[in-house]
């Protein structure tokens, strides 16, 4: 394809347009990606925080039920009430384990997962200690065995309580981490868009400069030649700078200047010949 001015302009501006389209596409992708990441991070962080708080509530409920059970353990009657406390405590432990399993499934890091695994283990230990304490208290609430089993249960309850608190901290951290992830994605997107825009601007300036040079330099040369010819100087060479419309114009101009030179030379020659003839006639 001939590198005409039209083709140069079309190619230059198409390039700039393509670049602008690329900038828009990258910007759009960055915003979409940011929104997606932000949604994901917020959802996971908020859900972990909520699960950790629910675990704490169930932990408190379980401890309250067991406390009520142990308070009633010494009473000769009220077996039905004790069993109800025990069933409710077991329900709370199962809830804690179910919530911890859900938290482990969505935990974003191994450290977070480990905290909720610890809650599961602590709740299992809590259940076992409770069963031992219940059995010992049934055999004799004032026995050494019952006291030891109750103390072991209290240790397990304390351990579960601590684990639940750790879980809450991790849930809170996950929310915080999600905000940091949004910040990171945001910074990355801004840097990317600024980088691509700067590159686009530099390329746009370069393309415009090259197009301007490709057009202005040969036009300026032709203007100088035209001025010289108009002042009678036919000796200035017409240069063909490029193989485009301006190059063709330079060729046409060159032909015209050559013809004018020739006709002028021919006229001068004819004049000399005429003058010589006059001299011959008039000695």
């Amino acid at each position, binding site marked *: 394809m001939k590198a005409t001015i039209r083709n140069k302009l079309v190619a230059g501006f198409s390039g700039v347009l393509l670049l602008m389209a690329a900038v828009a596409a990258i910007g759009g992708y960055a915003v979409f990606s940011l929104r997606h990441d932000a949604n994901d991070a917020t959802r996971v962080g908020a859900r972990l925080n909520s699960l950790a708080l629910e675990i704490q509530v169930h932990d408190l409920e379980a401890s309250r039920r067991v406390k009520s059970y142990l308070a009633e353990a010494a009473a000769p009657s009220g077996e039905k009430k004790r069993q109800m406390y025990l069933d409710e405590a077991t329900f709370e432990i199962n809830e804690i384990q179910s919530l911890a399993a859900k938290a482990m499934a969505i935990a974003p890091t191994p450290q977070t997962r480990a905290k909720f695994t610890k809650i599961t283990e602590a709740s299992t230990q809590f259940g076992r200690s409770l069963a031992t304490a219940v059995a010992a208290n049934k055999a004799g609430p004032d026995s050494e065995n019952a006291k030891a089993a109750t103390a072991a249960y209290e240790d397990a309850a304390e351990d579960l309580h601590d684990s639940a608190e750790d879980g809450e901290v991790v849930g809170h951290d996950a929310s915080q981490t999600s905000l940091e992830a949004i910040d990171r994605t945001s910074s990355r997107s801004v840097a990317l868009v600024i980088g691509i825009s700067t590159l686009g601007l530099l390329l746009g300036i370069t393309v415009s400069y090259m197009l301007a040079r490709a057009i202005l330099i040969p036009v300026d040369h032709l203007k100088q030649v035209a001025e010289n010819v108009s002042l009678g100087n036919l000796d200035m060479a017409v240069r063909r700078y490029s193989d485009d419309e301006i190059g063709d114009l330079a*060729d046409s101009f060159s*032909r015209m200047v*050559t013809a004018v030179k*020739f006709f002028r030379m021919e006229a001068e020659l004819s004049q000399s010949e005429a003058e010589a003839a006059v001299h011959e006639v008039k000695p």
Partner: protein
Amino acid sequence: MSAVSDKVIAISKTYLGPATESFLARQCKGHLKVELANLTAANIKDLAKWVQEGAGLIMDADKASQLASRISSVT
């Protein structure tokens, strides 16, 4: 006009524009002693030599040489 004359005029037109026929007629008549319309292949070598010389006076040497070279390839 002979076919050779037409070819020479067509080639020269791109270099000499409206002066083509006057320029070639002057070279043919002045140096080769033939009419432009009656050019034959036998005149081409000499014509190319005189064209290079004459054109060198009104255009730059490279262009004149290029024109002479193109004329000399006419058969």
